[in-house]
C-alpha cells in the first residue's frame, strides 16, 4: 500500500474556493474521500438529530414518566405538528447514520485485531436504531395522528415510545464493550487507550438506565436526574471525543496495515517538507 501513502503525500493542497468547489475537488482527488464522507455524515446527522429531537419534536429532554392519561393527551396536543413533521424528517435521514457505523467499524478494521470486532460492531449498531429510535418515532407518530383516540391507548403509546428509546440497553452495552476490547487489544495505536475506558463509561450508562423499567418517579425514572441527565452528559462527552478521535484517525491514515502514523506538529511538517525524501506516510 505504499503507492497510497505516496499519493496521499504528494496530494496538492485543496483549493480554498467555495464550499461546493472544495467538495468537488475532494471528490475528484482526495484518496480519503470515502472516510471523510462518512465522518461528515456523522457530524451533520448528530447535529440534525439534536435539532430534531430537542427543538422540532421537543421529545427531549423526556417528559415525566408519571403523567396521567389526560396529561399525556395534552402533551401530544402541544406538539402535534412538530412530532409529525420532525419524525418524518427522521424517517427520511436515519439511514444516513450507517456511514457512521461503517466508519467506527473501519476504525477496528485498521486495528491489529480480528475482523470479528468490526463486523459484530457493525451489525449491532446498525440494528440498534430500530428498537432504540425508530420504534419510538413510529409510536409517537401513531399517537399524534389520531388525537381523538382513547386516552388510555395514547398513554400506552407514550410508554412504548419512551421505554423503547431509553430502555433499549443491550445493543449499546455490547456494542461499546466490543469497541472497548478492540481498542485495548490493538497494537496499531489507532486510539489512545484511555478512550477504551470512556467506552466502558458509555456501556455503564446502559446499566444505570435499567431502573427506568421499574421506577415511574424520581431519579431513576426515564426522565430522572440519574437515568437521563447523567447518561446524557456521558453520551455527549463520549460522542464529542470519538468524533474528534475519528477525525484524527482519518488524518493519520496511511492505508497501511502497521501502526497508524502519529500526527506531526507544524514544525515537524515544515521540517519534513524541507527534506522531500521523507514520505508522508512513514510511521515515526
Amino acid at each position, binding site marked *: 500500500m505504499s503507492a497510497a501513502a505516496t499519493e496521499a503525500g504528494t496530494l496538492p493542497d485543496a483549493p480554498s474556493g467555495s464550499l461546493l468547489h472544495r467538495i468537488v475537488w475532494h471528490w475528484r482527488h482526495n484518496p480519503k474521500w470515502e472516510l471523510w*464522507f462518512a465522518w461528515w455524515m456523522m457530524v451533520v446527522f448528530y447535529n440534525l438529530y439534536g435539532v430534531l429531537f430537542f427543538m422540532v419534536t421537543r421529545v427531549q429532554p423526556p417528559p415525566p414518566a408519571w403523567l396521567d392519561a389526560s396529561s399525556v393527551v395534552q402533551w401530544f396536543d402541544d406538539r402535534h405538528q412538530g412530532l409529525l413533521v420532525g419524525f418524518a424528517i427522521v424517517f*427520511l435521514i436515519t*439511514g444516513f447514520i*450507517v456511514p457512521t457505523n*461503517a466508519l467506527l467499524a473501519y476504525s477496528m478494521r485498521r486495528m491489529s485485531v480480528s475482523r470479528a470486532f468490526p463486523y459484530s460492531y457493525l451489525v449491532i449498531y446498525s440494528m440498534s436504531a*430500530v428498537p432504540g429510535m425508530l420504534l419510538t418515532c413510529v409510536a409517537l407518530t401513531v399517537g399524534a*395522528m389520531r388525537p381523538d383516540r382513547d386516552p388510555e*391507548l395514547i398513554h400506552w403509546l407514550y410508554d412504548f415510545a419512551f421505554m423503547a428509546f431509553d430502555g433499549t440497553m443491550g445493543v449499546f452495552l455490547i456494542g461499546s464493550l466490543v469497541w472497548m476490547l478492540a481498542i485495548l487489544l490493538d497494537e496499531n495505536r489507532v486510539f489512545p487507550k484511555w478512550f477504551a475506558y470512556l467506552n466502558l463509561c458509555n456501556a455503564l450508562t446502559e446499566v444505570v438506565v435499567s431502573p427506568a423499567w421499574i421506577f415511574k418517579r424520581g431519579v431513576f425514572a426515564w426522565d430522572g436526574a440519574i437515568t437521563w441527565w447523567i447518561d446524557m452528559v456521558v453520551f455527549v462527552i463520549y460522542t464529542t471525543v470519538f468524533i474528534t478521535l475519528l477525525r484524527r484517525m482519518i488524518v493519520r491514515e496511511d492505508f497501511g496495515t502497521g501502526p497508524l502514523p502519529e500526527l506531526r506538529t507544524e514544525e515537524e511538517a515544515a521540517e519534513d517538507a524541507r527534506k522531500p525524501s521523507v514520505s508522508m506516510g512513514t510511521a515515526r
Partner: protein
Amino acid sequence: MRRTDGELILLWTLPALGVIWISAFLIFPGFVHPMSPTMSAEEVAAFYRDPKNLPRIRYSMILFNWFGVGMIPLLTLLVLQIRRMAHRTPIFSYCLLGCMAAGPTLFLIADLFWLLAAFRPERDPALIQLFNDLAWVTFTSQVPYLIAQSVILALAIYLDRQSRPVFEPWVAHFNLLIAAALVPAAFVGLAMGGAMAWDGLLSFWVKNVAIGLWVVVMGIVLGRAIHRQRAEEGVAA
C-alpha cells in the same frame, strides 16, 4: 465448482421470491385497494372480523413473515459487487451491510403488527385500530434504509473509477431516482387523505412500485455483473 456458482443459486432465488411477494401482496385484502386511514375503529375491526378477509390477512402476512427477509442473501451479492469496485476502503460495503441489517427488520415489525391485529379480531375495535395504525405507519414510513441504500450505492458506483466499472453509471442515476420516489412515504403521518396518505398515490403506489422496480432492475444488473465476473474468472483460470 466456482465461487460464483453459489452466488448464481442465490440470485435465482429472486424470481421465486418475486412470485411469493406478489402473491402475498395480492392475497392481503388491504393492499389492492389499500385501506384508508380515515376508516373508523369499527370499520377497521369489521375488516379484520370479516370471515372472507381474516384467513387472507393471516396467510399473506405469514408468507411475508417467512420471505420478507429473503432479500438479504441477494443484497449480500450486491455487497460483494461493491467489494469489486475500485474503492480504497470498505466503507461503502459496510454501509450496505448496515442497511441490510435494519431495513428488513422494520418490514418484519410491520408484519407483526398486522398479524397481532388479526390474532384476536374480537378484541376492542380501538385496539384493532391501534395495531392496524402501527402496521401501516411502520410499513409506509420506514423507508430510511432503502433511501440510504440507494444513495450510497449510487455514490459507490460513481466512485468506481476503473476502465470497466462493475455497474454502469446509469445504475447510479437509477438508484438516485428510486431514492427520490421513496421520499414522500416518510411523511405519511401528516396526511389522512390524498396522495400523501398511506393509501395515496405517492405513499403507497409510487413507493411500492419503486421498490418493485428496484428489485427487478438491480436483479438484472447484478446477474449481468456476476456472469461477467464468472467469465473473467474463467479466463484467469
